[in-house]
């Protein structure tokens, strides 16, 4: 008799009636064969695995994370509310102890969506993990969260949202940005002045296989997680590191993904990318589900799986070893690095140009943060896109100190309204979200 060692919940929402466009990789067909495999394997019949129905998130759930221009409705579709709702449902079930672990097998994905949203980037409009996490922080007694993003693409949206948050450890393992979209995610990207070290990037060379991924998990990720001691661990479980993925160059496998999941032991996994819809996803998803539930997955293999033919070269092995050492040193020295970055600054600024590939948009951003030792710091973002909108967005963090909260309101109250189309305020201390429209 097959029985799950860990009570595991699954939200399966393939959105069979939604696509970015008819021939886009993010189309109706994407999870069709995964559904076939999951159903044929009878996963929902296993004792201790249960299927849950997704929730639908509210506008406020989205506003808690994003500044949507001009508003939430304009940059989302119903499927985004359901896919974020799938993640939220899993998160609630875990924290309500209805299940021990859970996997939101939903689409569309979200990890390229940043704090300010003018449109879609990397097939993502809103960040479904962040929407879940911030809801859980509001509704339950959790504080420290670790996100391990194992999608092949750098999770630049999640990185952006948590860049200044020392309570959220974001680790992204991805194909080196010099060889793949979005082109970011290097080890020196370690977080803002109030949160240095809470962002960790592990860019792996093309053709990394099981050996390399599992090495990084065991020798870099797990020790850092042990040190950080999060209340919950979330895995952004993209599946495009697979050797058959059409838009990436890695050599990972279903066996590898299952082993990674067993090692990482995430409380919550959320599907991100993965576009080898016939050759990879059906097997990878079955592998991940069995691994989460603590069930033998040794026979879950792609029909054409041949570990010898995808094995990484010795050069890759030694490159990854060196990279791992560098990252561990950064982690140990994060305090010193933070001191150096802060200097005597009261405010820190960064200017960025952000490209929205899915919607072909450019955004110009100037971000200002109050350097603060008592909280994550108030943030002010001046953003304009080539659609013509110019906005000001102010974020007062969850555990803001009096000074940062005061500064946030001062920015909001004294902003020159004639300069902006809209002015937004996110006051996380009071779960309050305001918009001023010119």
């Amino acid at each position, binding site marked *: *008799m*097959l029985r799950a060692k860990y009570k595991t919940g699954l*939200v*399966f*929402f*393939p*959105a*069979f*009636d*939604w696509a970015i466009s*008819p*021939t886009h990789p993010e*189309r*109706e*067909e994407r999870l*069709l*064969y995964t*559904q*076939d*495999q999951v*159903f*044929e*394997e*009878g996963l929902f*019949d296993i004792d201790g695995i249960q*299927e*849950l*129905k*997704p929730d*639908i998130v509210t506008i406020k759930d989205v506003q808690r994370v994003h500044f949507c221009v001009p508003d939430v409705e304009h940059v989302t579709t*119903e*499927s985004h509310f*359901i896919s974020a709702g799938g993640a939220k449902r899993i998160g609630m079930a875990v924290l309500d102890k209805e299940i021990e672990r859970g996997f939101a097998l939903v689409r569309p994905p979200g990890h390229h969506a940043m704090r300010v949203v003018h449109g879609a980037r990397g097939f993502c409009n809103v960040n479904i993990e962040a929407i879940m996490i911030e809801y859980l922080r509001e509704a339950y007694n959790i504080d420290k969260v670790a996100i391990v993003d194992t999608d092949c693409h750098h999770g630049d949206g999640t990185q952006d949202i948590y860049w200044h948050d020392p309570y959220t450890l974001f680790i992204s393992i991805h194909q080196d940005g010099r060889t793949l979209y979005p082109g970011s995610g290097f080890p020196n990207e370690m977080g803002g002045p109030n949160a240095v070290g809470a962002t960790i990037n592990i860019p792996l060379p093309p053709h990394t296989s099981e050996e390399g991924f599992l090495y990084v998990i065991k020798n870099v990720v797990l020790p850092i997680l042990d040190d950080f001691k999060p209340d919950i661990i979330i895995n952004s479980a993209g599946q495009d590191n697979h050797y058959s993925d*059409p838009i990436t160059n890695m050599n990972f496998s279903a066996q590898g993904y299952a082993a990674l999941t067993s090692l990482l032991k995430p409380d919550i996994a959320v599907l991100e990318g993965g576009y080898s819809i*016939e050759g990879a996803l*059906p*097997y990878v998803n*079955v592998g991940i589900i*069995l691994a989460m539930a603590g*069930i*033998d997955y*040794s*026979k*879950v*293999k*792609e*029909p054409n*799986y041949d570990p010898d033919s995808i094995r990484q070269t010795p050069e890759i092995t030694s490159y990854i070893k060196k990279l791992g050492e560098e990252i561990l040193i950064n982690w140990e020295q994060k305090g010193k690095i933070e001191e150096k970055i802060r200097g005597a600054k009261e405010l820190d600024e960064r200017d960025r140009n952000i490209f929205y590939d899915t919607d072909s948009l450019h955004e110009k951003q100037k971000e200002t943060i109050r350097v603060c030792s008592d909280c994550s710091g108030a943030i002010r973002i001046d953003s304009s896109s080539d659609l013509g909108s110019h906005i000001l967005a102010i974020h007062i963090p969850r555990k803001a100190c009096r000074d940062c909260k005061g500064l946030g309101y001062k920015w909001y109250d004294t902003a020159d309204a004639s300069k902006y189309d809209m002015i937004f305020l996110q006051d996380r201390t009071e779960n309050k979200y305001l918009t001023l429209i010119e």
Partner: protein
Amino acid sequence: MIKTKENSMIVGLDVGGTHTDVVLLGNEGLLKEIKVLTDSSDLYRTVLTGLEKLLEGVEPAKINRIVLSTTLTTNAIVQKKLPQVGMIVSSGPGIDPKFFCTNSHYFAVSGSIDHRGREIEPVDKNEIENISGILKNEGIRNIGVVSKFSVRNPSHELIINEILKDSFTKIFLGHQISGNLNFSRRIATTYLNAAVYPLHKEFFEAVNKSLKEKGLMVPIHILKADGGTMSFESSIDSPGRTILSGPAASVMGSIASAPDEEESLVLDIGGTTTDMAVLINRIPVLEPLGIRLGGYKTLIRSLETRSIGLGGDSVVKVEDGKINIGPERAGPAMAYGGPVPTPTDAFFVMKHIKNGDKKKSIEGLKSIAKGIGTSYENAAHEIVDQTCRKILEEAQDMINLINRKPVYTIHEIKEGYHVKPKKIIVLGGPAPHFAEYLEKLSGYKVSVAPRWKVANAIGAALARTTCEVTLFADTEQKIVAAPEERFSISVKEGFTKDDAVEKAFDLLKQKALQRGANIDDLEMEILEDLQFNMIRGFYTTGKNIRIKVQVKPGLIHEYESIAERLL
């Protein structure tokens, strides 16, 4: 002698745990009803006695339909009295098939087919021949053969069948049992079919023979768990469908009095158990996958029902100063000479009921009242209240479960259809006693099904033939197939979802007629119709179409006038 104008009498028989109910229906409505005690060690005798008693004085030639619902296969499974069969299972990658092992002669073999029905690894014929030798030596007669994704491509099961067919009595192939995906359930279902086959065949052949000897020449129909019937001939290839037909009989018996455009909850309150189901516009809600019984999860289509160990004869006792009711039954109520107090005795105390010994009930209730320090009248109220509450709670839980069923499109989520019955129909022995209290507690309108004591046998008699067809098309591979129906043809690129639905309805019609349906009685509907564009690279390479259609469970139209006369 009972006479009717035409030869249109129907016999319905339902074997229950305690009683077997038999009814004779004609144009005038219910002509005759018989109850005999069920002897579970000799169901053949029980069924025959029931039929003989019913047919005393009836001219056999006037009977034109006989429908039987028995507990034969259900009992064999629950009591684990199943004969040895051989199982050959080919899995390929995925969960290790050893976890799905059903019995001792279970062989996991090589060979593999993927989710689109493409062969990954061929069958090893030598391996199968060796296993065939072993099974023959062991004296195994009946075999089940199942391969993963055989509902997409049955070729491996067919090849194995070809090797085995001359050496064994009967071979059941997984793809012919159900069109649904679910390998482990396909294994369990195929196993159960092979295992109950000899019992089922022997039993119904014996019944058939006896009826022929009595001059009853009409074909026998058998009730299935989905509330539909099938002919005896077609049951030989799927005897597993007869499992758990009992609750289905009662639900079908309630349909005649169910409202047309509303949802209702059906409660069949028996002596030991209460069975529940939901009707939407007179159509029962079906289980999404299939029956669970005796530790097996199957692909046998069935009504969504729930059974709890609480009924009119449940044992009432006091434990730790609290009243405890059921799940066991020690005999009838004390009012009817039973040994311990029951909810029925509580009704005797509270109401004026004929044909029983109220004094005995009071005596029983007094012992309960003493245990909880109250009057026997209060104890009676407490017992009835607790029993009704428990039944309603379970019913609500089942309804919640129906509403929690996941859906996979935005459209369905937005539509968000929620079942919320506003009416309760009760049937079964103690039904009328319960009705008023259930109404008070639930706030819903509660009605007692007409002929509540034998509604189950009436349900069996009037149920129509049902079946389901699952069809898929993969125009990239140029195939359209319904392996369960042994149907597969090649198609051209322009094949559409509408073509697929038309084809599926054709197959459904053929299947229903072959199973004994009347041509005027094919209420067909689409359960699922999905079409996906298959894109490889940047080009559309084909369409992937999935269709599921069914004949809805319901009463035979021709007999609606009979059903109306029951009201």
